């Protein structure tokens, strides 16, 4: 791999924002035809480095060499011209435009008259690209009609159409299921064989080991190390990332199980859920695995009253209940940490205190009037208890890291002392340190007798944290596994509709 000049060499890159040194003298090299992992905790500087590479930011100092020649990248179009392409974590397709329009957005083939677009040529080229990737997607389909995985693949097609020599992928698998991830990996290997270099950013270390050739670790804006992946172990990477040894990522202490807190039988929502039945005990962490679209989020949302149930029964602590709104769910002792923190959880322009007390407003008001002393006291108590790293309670939640934001949302529920806490992808986009803290917190809650329902697409997390695992497939529960017997293989069989261990 070292026989030629690297395709990309970034050296001595520094970048500061008011009050923060985001990058200090960072060195980063990618070879042709290499899949290079870029890892680090949130805030380590990965995205800043990528934004400098793609021209969204200008570095304060440092050089970039492309194919051995120094270049200046001043704008996104500069980097595109060089052959650098970025696939962002948030999908960047326009839902109401067609696949073809999306692929060639900003680079439409010129029609006969100036200013006009040659639609025929555009769709023909799009078709060709899609075929090259063996994607079963029509170029004239609107992007919103595609599944998330298909959209992800269209992004890859877009990157390819740019004749990119280097594609940077920021957490491309975070919203993909394992099967879809495999499809993406197959495609990445094919690209690699064609000599395309790929920068792969992921929090999922299993994937780093599966797909990458080398790993670069950033910490606190500094370059820590770059090594061949095969020389590393998972523990070693984590140690490099956090600067200390973490020990076992998933320490497990079983808790004593108590009475049933939740019994669900034949729950349907008329669309995605089909006769779901299960039970949850106090003191138990019940993991729910499955592919995207298997109905896991639908189950959580139906339990929490966000979407209506069309059939079936829910019993809470033995009592039949009809929950029709989140408000009623909360009154019945439920809490829900949603999947999409920014869209569904946070009040981004509000302070930490308001974000914590919003659901438990009754606890801090007298006759509807907010008692500041009570509100501060309550928020402070949970900031300390969950070790939320914030300068003070007045701090805008926007300025906290992903892990701390997630802790604030969990704190919001803990103020209400829930009997059941549902967490949907609780550690998505959360760095390794905070992830372990959140897992420990879930265990602590279980020890206090809370029934914890955890939805996760990360199999190691499901296997490492849960006491018991349910697997969903197409709106049904297709597997129930105890902690001791569960393996990744068994979960995948059930998640893809296999018949082993089918309940009922």
């Amino acid at each position, binding site marked *: 791999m070292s026989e030629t000049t690297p395709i990309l060499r970034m050296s001595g890159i520094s970048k500061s924002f008011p009050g923060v040194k985001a990058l200090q003298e960072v060195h980063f090299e990618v070879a042709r035809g290499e899949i290079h992992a870029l890892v680090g905790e949130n805030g380590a500087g990965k995205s800043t480095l990528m934004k400098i590479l793609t021209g969204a930011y200008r570095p304060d100092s440092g050089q970039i060499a492309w194919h051995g020649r120094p270049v200046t990248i001043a704008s*996104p179009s500069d980097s595109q011209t060089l052959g650098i392409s970025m696939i962002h974590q948030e999908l960047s397709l*326009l*839902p109401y435009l067609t696949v073809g*329009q999306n692929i060639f957005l900003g680079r439409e083939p010129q029609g006969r008259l100036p200013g006009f677009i040659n639609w025929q040529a555009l769709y023909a080229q799009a078709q060709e690209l899609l075929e090259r990737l063996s994607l079963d997607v029509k170029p004239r389909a609107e992007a*919103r009609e595609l599944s998330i995985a298909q959209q992800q693949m269209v992004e890859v097609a877009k990157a390819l159409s740019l004749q990119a020599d280097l594609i940077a992928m920021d957490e491309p698998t975070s919203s993909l299921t394992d099967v879809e991830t495999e499809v993406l990996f197959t495609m990445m290997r094919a690209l690699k064989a064609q000599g395309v270099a790929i920068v792969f950013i992921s929090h999922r270390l299993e994937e780093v080991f599966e797909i990458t050739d080398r790993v670069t670790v950033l910490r606190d804006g500094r370059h820590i190390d770059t090594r061949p992946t095969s020389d590393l172990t998972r523990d070693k990477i984590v140690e490099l990332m956090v600067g200390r040894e973490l020990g076992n990522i998933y320490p497990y202490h079983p808790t004593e199980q108590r009475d049933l807190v939740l019994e669900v039988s034949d729950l349907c929502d008329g669309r995605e859920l089909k006769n779901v039945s299960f039970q949850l005990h106090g003191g138990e962490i019940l993991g729910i695995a499955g592919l995207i*679209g298997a109905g896991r989020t*639908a189950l959580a949302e139906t339990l929490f009253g966000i979407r209506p149930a069309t059939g079936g029964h829910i019993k809470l602590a033995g009592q039949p209940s009809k929950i029709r709104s989140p408000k009623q769910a909360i009154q019945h002792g439920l809490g829900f940490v949603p999947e999409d923190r920014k869209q569904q959880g946070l009040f981004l322009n509000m302070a930490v205190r308001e974000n914590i007390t919003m659901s438990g407003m009754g606890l801090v008001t007298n006759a509807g009037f907010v008692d500041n002393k009570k509100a501060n006291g309550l928020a402070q108590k949970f900031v300390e208890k969950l070790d939320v790293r914030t300068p003070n309670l007045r701090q805008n939640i926007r300025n906290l890291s992903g892990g701390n934001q997630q802790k604030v949302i969990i704190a919001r529920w803990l103020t209400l002392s829930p009997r059941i806490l549902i967490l949907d992808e609780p550690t998505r986009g959360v760095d390794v340190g905070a992830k372990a803290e959140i897992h420990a917190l879930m265990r602590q809650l279980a020890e206090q007798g809370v029934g914890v329902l955890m939805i996760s697409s990360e199999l190691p997390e499901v296997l490492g944290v849960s006491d018991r695992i349910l697997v969903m497939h197409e709106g049904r529960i297709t597997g129930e596994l105890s902690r001791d017997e569960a393996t990744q293989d068994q979960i995948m069989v059930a998640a893809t509709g296999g018949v082993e261990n089918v309940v009922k």
Partner: protein
Amino acid sequence: MSSNNHTPSPLVELLRRYSVLIILIGIAAIFALGSEKFLTASNLLNIALQTSIIAIVAMGMTFTILTAGIDLSVGSVMALSGALAAGLAVRQELGTYTAITLALAGGGLLGLINGLLIVKGKMPPFVATLAMLAVARGLTLVYTDGRPISGIDERFIFLGNGEVLGVPLPVIFMILAFIIAFIVLRYTRFGMYVYATGGNEEISRLAGIQTARITVGVYVISGLTAALGGILLAARLWSAQPNAAAGWELDAIAAPVLGGISLFGGVGSVTGTVMGAFILGILSNGLNLMGVQSFYQQIIKGVVLILAVMLDLFTKRRR
């Protein structure tokens, strides 16, 4: 999060795609049954004439709404351009066509200022154009000294009242505006980028689209169509009124909204806008023919607006 594989029933799909046309035909059918005068050639031409000016302004508005913007200033810009055209022609004796060209340029300039306030000043379109609504109306009052400007010549008046092959000129302008707007939105880069900018400005910018220019462009277009509408209105009325077109911005917004164009941007077509404008035009024409008092017409108009949007949302949600 939810899977995307609900296949809509063909009926719902049909309803969704053609809901505006169905409403339009439905309303027309009711009036055709209610009044025998409704479905005559002369009445239909009359409806087209009544609708033409607001349709032209609404087509410019459509561009701004497609970028998730809005232009509240069109009524005032109409008044100012009409006054300028008449004033330059009558007072400054610049010659009708010179005066009209300058007035059109004036409308474009006001649109340009709207666009720059939004892009450079980072003002929400609602607020920037609300400020322009006040400023342009004030300038009209100042320029006209609060009195109508009359005495425009025949060539000017012909623009609003003349006919070519039996078709009133404003209707011809409307058809031309429609053809141009349709082609621009469907076949040009600019049109494509209008949809992209409205769909998601950030993504569009990352794709290398100069969204600031697109945004400024749509407000210039809206300023130009408003100016054209204002000039045609002055021509039709034989004079420029200082209070002309007050409140017309609301009809110019109602037409695209009735035509299924989302206020959130990125969705809809100028065909919808024209149909929306005709729904409004047919409503008032038909209700007049049926002898419904104009006061009631307002109530009916409001109800139709809300119901049409509800129907549109309902069919879309059914997908």
